[in-house]
């Protein structure tokens, strides 16, 4: 057991290092010099150099080859890459644009993202699970076909079309609720969209998972000894379906934090989504890098946690 957890932990460390490497390549190495966006070129080279030095953009990219391979000297490690690693792990980056600390910005904005994503995820999950159970209960009937058909139809409408459609509807019904957070209850509109747009795919996935279980021997045994069908479905089958369903929930964790990027942007909710998109437009590298790293790290840790929990509850996984 301990060996399994340790092995998974080492894997997670490697993955997190990989994410830092990938974000470094994507955001620091490829885009090159972004100073022109923040320092007016008319101020001359001195101003630009000062800005570069302040943000440590003048340092060598990966290793300081000026001191060759004298890795015992601290300046050998004084490079953009190692500052990037340090900033990623300590979250002490500052925005190029506002010079605010990342932790402060995230603390201010995360509550709006969470206010949207937590209810959306909880409601969506509950609704999809209930519908999937009912559909699985009536499997093979016209009701099953109708609901599966509706789920597929729902999946095929572009997300953007849902947002535009619902916003237009709200605009006609109650214009103040169509944009912004002037009234806190406005949050229900994007929550509803997230639930409606996501429920089709979830229902279809959960239905497949449940039907996989329904054909197993223990279900036949339970039926044979006279357990009523709802009892079999909701007590026995559902419990065994939890593994893939929980995994699908954990993989949604990054969206809790980064928010529904598009929804927040579209409905003018000042969460982390618009921050990310705005920072991309402004080439605000520290913010983009660290937000990406934050979501990836949370995702990795979430998967690690579920794997460990599975191993605790299911001995077959431990031995693999």
């Amino acid at each position: 057991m301990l060996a399994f957890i340790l092995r998974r932990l080492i894997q997670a460390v490697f993955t997190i290092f990989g994410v830092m490497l990938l974000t470094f390549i994507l955001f620091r190495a490829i885009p090159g010099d972004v100073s022109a966006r923040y320092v007016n070129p008319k101020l001359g080279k001195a101003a630009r150099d000062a800005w570069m030095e302040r943000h440590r953009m003048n340092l060598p990219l990966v290793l300081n080859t000026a001191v060759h391979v004298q890795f015992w000297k601290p300046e050998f490690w004084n490079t953009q890459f190692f500052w990037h690693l340090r900033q990623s792990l300590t979250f002490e980056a500052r925005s190029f644009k506002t010079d605010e600390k990342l932790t402060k910005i995230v603390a201010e904005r995360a509550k709006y993202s969470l206010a949207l994503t937590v209810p959306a995820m909880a409601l969506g999950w509950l609704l999809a699970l209930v519908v999937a159970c009912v559909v699985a209960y009536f499997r093979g009937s016209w009701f099953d076909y109708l609901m599966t058909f509706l789920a597929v139809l729902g999946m095929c409408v572009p997300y953007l079309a849902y947002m535009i459609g619902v916003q237009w509807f709200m605009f006609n019904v109650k214009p103040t609720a169509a944009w912004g957070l002037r009234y806190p209850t406005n949050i229900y509109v994007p929550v509803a969209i997230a639930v409606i747009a996501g429920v089709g795919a979830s229902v279809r996935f959960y239905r497949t998972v449940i039907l996989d279980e329904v054909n197993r021997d223990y279900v036949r045994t339970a039926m044979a000894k006279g357990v009523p069908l709802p009892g079999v479905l909701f007590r026995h089958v559902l419990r065994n379906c939890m593994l893939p369903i929980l995994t699908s929930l954990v993989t949604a964790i990054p969206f809790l934090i980064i928010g529904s990027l598009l929804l927040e942007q579209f409905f003018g909710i000042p969460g982390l989504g618009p921050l990310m998109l705005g920072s991309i437009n402004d080439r605000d590298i520290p913010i983009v890098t660290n937000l990406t790293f934050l979501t990836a790290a949370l995702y990795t840790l979430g998967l690690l946690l579920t794997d460990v929990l599975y191993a605790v509850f299911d001995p077959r996984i431990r031995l693999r």
Partner: protein
Amino acid sequence: MTISGAPGGADARSLWGDAARRLRRDKAAVACFAVVVLYALIAVVCPFVWSDWADSYDYDNINRPPSLTHPMGTDEFGRSVLQKTLLGASTSMTVGFMANIIAVPLGIVLGAVAGYYGGRLDDLIVWFYTTVASIPGLIRLIAIKFAFAETVLFANTPFEMDLGHGMSGVYIALGMMSWVGTCRLVRAEVMKIRELDYVLAARAVGTPSIVILFRHVVPNVLHIGIINFSLGFVGAISAEVMLSYLGLGVGTGIPSWGAMIDAAKMDLVVGRWWEITSAVAATFLIVLAWNIVGDRLRDALDPRLRTA
């Protein structure tokens, strides 16, 4: 499992022949496949028919609702929305096709190599795809578009690709970011096939491992590639719509459903419904068709999923 080319007998069927027979019997699959073919035809033919569409301004007829002369109305420059929608098929199909032409072979090769050779190489490839997969899809896509912003490939040659603004940036970004699923499935499947007797036999007669892998093993996982190709199309079409909304799409001047839906956020309020309607309808139909084709392909090609 029967392998294609197995010596004949009365009921010897290859996997592909069997799958084709199953698909032909399935009316929904045939209908959806016909829709896909129709879209592909539209995508190929329309750019030739209306090659001057982008400049066909008609300022006397801007923003007209549907009429007999313009069946789906006109846009803000007086151009036909029906033509725009049909030309948009070309953009969507190109993005979907090119993205998957990059992603699927990449996934198959990486997955096959990892699964067959194992060891350090496997560790490296698994680490690589776990890392890529740990960044959520949309952010991954935005990130690579961000990195591409000022990149121009093959500058000053006939093959010039402006990754920051053109269509090529969208499909290259999509292709580079969506191979993980294929890779993971192919790796798992190759690890199973590696242990089969025919691979051992090939090894025993001294076939080089690279030949065993690409000649004898990979053909048996190609069905995973085909399934992921059709499902990846759905992802690419939806991603194009989202990227357009974020201003990271195929760029102005190229008719695209994403840009049309995005433009409607201002249009609907003033009652111009025809542009979003035709774009959503076009997107909806092709996504539905690819979804069903992909599902049926999976049922037909992956015998383990069949219920006895």
